[in-house]
């Protein structure tokens, strides 16, 4: 019989970014405007303020963790471009 295994909770971490958020980004925006669109980055960056990382991880029931990293680049507080691509779905819980 399928003996019930250890119940492990799902661990969700990081900003949930959607494609239409990314489409709203326009070069030249300042940090406040980027934060208004994408939300505040959850990952503090301590040493380098020219880049902000919007990481997202999701571990289902203690299993493998799927990850997504959107890195946003600034030049003198002006948004230039971003790198990284989105997972197909990024559930919140």
């Amino acid at each position, binding site marked *: 019989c399928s003996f019930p*295994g*250890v119940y*492990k909770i799902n*661990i969700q*971490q*990081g900003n949930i970014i959607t494609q239409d958020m990314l489409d709203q980004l326009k070069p030249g925006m300042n940090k406040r405007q980027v934060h208004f669109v994408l939300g505040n980055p*959850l*990952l*503090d*960056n*301590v*040493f*380098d303020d020219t*880049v902000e*990382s919007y*990481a997202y*991880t999701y*571990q289902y029931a*203690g299993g493998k*963790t799927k*990850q997504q*990293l959107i*890195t946003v680049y600034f030049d003198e507080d002006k948004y230039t471009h971003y790198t990284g691509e989105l997972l197909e779905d990024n559930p919140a819980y």
Partner: protein
Amino acid sequence: CASTPDPELTEKEYYDEAKAAIDANNFSLATKNLEALETRYPFGRYAEQAQLDLIYARYNNIDLEGARAAADRFIRLHPQSPHVDYAYYIRGIASYNLDVGLASQYFPAVDVTSRDPGEMRRAFDDFSQLLTRFPDSDYAADAEQRMIEIRNRLSEYELHAARYYLKREAYIAAANRAAHIVKSYPNTSAVESALTIMIETYRLLGMESQADDALAVLAANFPDSDSFDDDMKFKPSEIQKQQRSLLSVVTFGWFE
């Protein structure tokens, strides 16, 4: 029906009786006399000294809250007194010891840094006021040393949380706690481990440039850290995959 008040002594008599009680370590009697002196002669010549002694008497009478309140009062009433540094100091000491439980004081096995420091935070502020206003006070050195311990303890508390999240495999939470240590507790004992955690979690999250930054800072500040092997290559040590499968638990780890 008004109760008969005990006889009103002169200012000096109250003071002398209190002084004798303190010398005889009878602190409750001392407190009673000092409080009577203060209400009857609020502005007499002994008022300032009485309020100073009251702080000491209440503290030894195991009434730390009362000692703190008496110190506050002294600071408010005699800001210019040359002895006001004593009031700041004892106020700090009272807050410092308010929440110290029996266990954490006598059993070293109890890791006190993972418990809520409680009133110690307030002790830090009180000592800080003492040091800012009276850097030359003879209590400054002791206060400073306690502040260092409190600050280290606060940073260790953060480290506990960070390490839990590593075990929980919540790496962003762990990275943030570590970053918080580096940002807010830059000169404490937890910084080295915090940097290591940042390096390992950033690598895991694919944030190579941030990881390198943290590595550079670690190398700059802790060249002989044991995260470096002898040719300065970084060896991860903080993240250990915990064996979470049932089988491993039952078989004490022999089988995965």
